[in-house]
């Protein structure tokens, strides 16, 4: 603090009492001889007064240390994991007492119970849907089958009808000529 020193040297009181360099020695000498060291006190007071005088108009500014300012050291981004939360106690918090363990267990159990319940509900719903689909599919198959049967029946009936209509007149003819005609046809088929 060079400027303050110079000011003390220049100031009246300091000049009158003693030079700054010698002041210590003198005070020491005096203090050694006198039990009460008045001059020293005076000097201190004078210093304070001078400081006040010098700092007139301006308020004394607080000097912040770098730590207090909380500025990042290299002015760069710190990764999330690296930065540690302030004011938090270091280390892990253990759970070893029965009560807290029981509460955690109850929470976990309730959670699991809910999960299982929802799973069961879901499974039941899925099962219902599956059953409904199965029933529907079966119904569809049944309808298709019945339709097919109907058409089959219809065809059969048609055939029977057509054969019945022809049979009235030609039955006698066919019966009469059955043996000879059949034989002739067979021959032609076998040698073709």
């Amino acid at each position, binding site marked *: 603090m060079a400027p303050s020193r110079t000011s003390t040297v220049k100031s009246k009181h300091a000049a009158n009492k003693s030079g700054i360099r010698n002041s210590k020695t003198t005070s020491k000498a005096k203090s050694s001889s006198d039990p009460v060291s008045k001059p020293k006190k005076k000097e201190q007071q004078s210093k304070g007064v001078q400081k006040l005088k010098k700092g007139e108009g301006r308020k004394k500014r607080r000097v912040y240390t770098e730590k207090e300012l909380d500025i990042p050291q290299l002015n760069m981004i710190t990764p999330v994991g690296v930065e540690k939360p302030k004011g938090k106690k270091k280390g*892990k*918090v*253990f*759970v*070893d007492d*029965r009560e*807290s*363990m*029981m509460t*955690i*267990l*109850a*929470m*976990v*159990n309730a*959670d*699991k*119970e809910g999960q*299982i319940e929802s*799973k*069961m509900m879901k*499974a039941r719903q899925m*099962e219902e849907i599956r059953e409904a689909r199965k029933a529907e599919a079966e119904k569809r198959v049944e309808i298709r089958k019945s339709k097919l049967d109907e058409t089959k029946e219809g065809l059969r009936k048609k055939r029977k009808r057509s054969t019945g209509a022809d049979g009235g007149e030609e039955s006698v003819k066919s019966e009469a000529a059955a043996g000879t005609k059949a034989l002739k046809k067979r021959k032609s088929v076998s040698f073709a």
Partner: protein
Amino acid sequence: MRPLTEQETQTLFAKLANYTGTSLKNLIVPLDNGPNADRFVFRLHQSRCYYVRLSLANLAISVSRDKLLSLGTCLGKFTKSGKFRLHITALPILAEHARYKVWVKANGEMPFLYGGHVVKAHIGRWSEDCPEHQGVVVYSMNDTPLGFGVTARSTQEARRLDPTGITCFRQADCGEYLRDEDTLFATS
């Protein structure tokens, strides 16, 4: 060796609750009604979690960390990502409090103990109303716990499954005592 943190306790209980019912709370009740009754606690040692009597755990603190191999019952280990993996050594505890069970017929025991999944043809009995992907304990027909697994299908769906279909995915079986002998207890 240290007790578990809150997060770790939660992870552990969540895993155990997959296999057990509400009777899980019996794990941590005191052994008698005295004021300073002994009880079971969970201790973490070299990422493995042990279920151990408090009195034994207190004695074990006199053993240096690197010299202490194991204490109590090893339940499993915490992975690096913070999940918990149950070991076959936890089977006695799980079997005691199991919620859903599967009984395997004699012809299915060996395939399971050799590390296979449980197929439908090997199942003798199963718990009713078991949902899909639920932890189950696998027993032999004479009620000896063989291991544990996770159901592949719910009970209703499994009924319709063909005999070669997988009903239960294996998680751990007693065969691991031999197969994983080198790594099951040693920590490297």
